[in-house]
């Protein structure tokens, strides 16, 4: 990814007032809201909709693909003009996409790029890139190498986690100074899961030097487990997302050393803009990779400020 982040999506990002808007209704189909990231996404889309003066109706499928299909059908019944799908760990939903295209309704995917089926446009992060970034940072941070734990998010029907871990191990795994141990159990993308998985990992591998988690929520839990075990000085953490609490931890200069920004807020807002552009008949890019800057102690405060600005601003 380059640094051309919002160049191709005029009027995105900051949420400046734009005059158009029309009286469109945008449906937002969330696969799940059971995680801060997905929540942030939904909130961002709705906030941007308000800023742009259009109506947004969001649904939550509670992690159930069938309900996602029903929700989209309900949205079609309500006569929405476009649908944004935040598909979470769902990798694809051909029937949903089919029924939308049958109804002639444009679809914008945010975060996850579906592997099959026809969609109008996608915006999301380059997950492998984030993993590589984290790996590179750790490799540099621990020149003597050591044992590195990996905490995976969830049932692997998500290419996103796999891509992050692959990116990370492509750097660390190929470096003979490092030994990689993957936690056997999943952290479920949440802090409580991250905590338990880390505790169990420490029971077998108390000699770790670093831990990579597929998202920040898990890393925050893992950080507590490390602290409880009195190993804060020995083990550093690397995460993904840029969740506020993680940024704060990084800013304090403790053992949480790096994360890769995967801004739900930014992607969400861009997603809504993209939907409106399509409705206005503009020619849009089909797939857009949203940049994922690396965040370390050096620039953490910047990102915290920006996040605070966004959340208080809308």
């Amino acid at each position, binding site marked *: 990814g380059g640094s051309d982040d919002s160049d191709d999506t005029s009027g995105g990002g900051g949420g400046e007032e734009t005059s158009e808007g029309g009286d469109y209704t945008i449906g937002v189909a*969330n696969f799940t*809201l059971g995680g801060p990231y997905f929540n942030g996404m*939904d909130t961002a889309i709705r906030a941007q909709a308000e800023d742009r003066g259009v109506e947004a*109706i*969001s*649904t*939550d499928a509670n*992690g*159930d*693909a*069938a*309900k*996602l*299909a*029903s*929700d989209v*059908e*309900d*949205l*079609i*019944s*309500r*006569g929405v003009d476009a649908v944004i799908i935040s598909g979470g*760990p*769902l*990798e*694809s*939903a*051909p*029937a*949903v996409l*089919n029924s939308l295209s049958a109804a002639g309704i444009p679809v914008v995917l945010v975060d996850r790029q579906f*592997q*099959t*089926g026809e969609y109008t446009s996608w915006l999301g992060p380059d997950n492998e890139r984030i993993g590589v970034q984290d790996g590179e940072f750790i490799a540099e941070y621990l020149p003597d190498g050591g044992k590195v734990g990996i905490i995976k998010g*969830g*049932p*692997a*029907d998500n*290419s996103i986690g796999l891509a992050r871990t692959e990116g990370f191990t492509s750097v660390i795994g190929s470096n003979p100074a490092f030994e990689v141990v993957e936690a056997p159990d999943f952290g479920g993308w949440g802090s409580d899961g991250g905590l338990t998985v880390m505790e169990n990992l420490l029971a077998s591998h108390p000699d770790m030097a670093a831990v990579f988690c597929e998202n920040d929520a898990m890393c925050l839990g893992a950080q507590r487990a490390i602290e409880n075990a009195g190993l804060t000085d020995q083990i550093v953490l690397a995460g993904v997302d840029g969740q506020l609490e993680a940024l704060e931890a990084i800013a304090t200069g403790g053992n949480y050393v790096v994360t890769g920004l995967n801004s739900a807020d930014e992607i969400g807002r861009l997603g809504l803009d993209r939907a409106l552009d399509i409705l206005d008949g503009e020619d849009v890019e089909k797939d857009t990779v949203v940049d994922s800057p690396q965040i370390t102690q050096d620039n953490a405060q910047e990102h915290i400020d920006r996040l605070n600005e966004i959340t208080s601003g809308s």
Partner: protein
Amino acid sequence: MTSQTAPPPVEDDRRTSRRQLPRLVVGGRDVTSGVGFVVALVLLVVLAAVTTENFLTEQNLTNLLRQMVTVGLLAYGMLVVILTAGIDLSVGSVVAFSGIVSAGLVADLPIPLALTVGVLAGVGFGLVNGLLIAGFDLAPFVVTLAALTTIRGLAFVYSEVPIAPEDPGFFTLGTALAGPIPVPTLIMVGVFLVGGIFLTRTPAGRAIVAIGGNRETVRLAGISVKKHLVLAYTISGTCAGLAGVILASRVGIAQPSVGVAFELDAIAACVIGGASLAGGRGSVRATLGGVLVLSLINNLLNLHGVQSFWQQVLKGLIIIAVIIVQRRSMGERA
């Protein structure tokens, strides 16, 4: 012989007189014949129709019919198990397994065969559940909870990633329409009809109902309790397998993670329909009513564009309101 005053019939079962209708109450009182249940259903429909203009559109009604299929199929199987005083927590995992296996096999087998294998997987899991529960006399809750875990694991072992068959023939089962009515809905209604007749008109069905009422009496009447328990869990597994295959075909992609907590909705449909988890009481028709209630609530909230978290808050409250209305009108303890 007794010329005595035979007292007038005490509480004659009024349904005995309209025997022409299939008698789908399989034990205990039929809550759908209670005013409250019908009132609650009608109230929901009227509420939906009056407060949103989109409810009575063909599009929406078709959605509604389609959306009830999964819970509906699971609920019938669950009812059979609940009637024996059992429970089947594994259905959600079976949905996932059957779906992913049939989607996976599409690459190698003709589609109808692949789908059949998916359903057969459900049959097999149900059979194993039943054999463990009946054969070792184990608590259904723990056995099917363990099955929930194991089968979910197996679904992921089969394929960690979702499988989306290329062949559009895979979508036919799930998306076909017969006129305005989705084919899956017809299948579900068929299951309820045949299943209703099974429970009310066949010796095996009656035995299943009786087991939940008093298994000792049934055993001493020379009926094999074990055999019928195995049958009940096999039926539930079969329904779950069918639901899984239809769901995968409808969504167009089979996920190993699908179906979490489906068992709760299925049980809820039965219980809203007046079934007792203590066994022996439940109604096929009322269970279908329970499925309808749950689907209507979701549809209503979505059509109103209620925000997700508030949807959850309201959904719970509406369910409670529905069962209070129903309970009130039944008077006595369900």
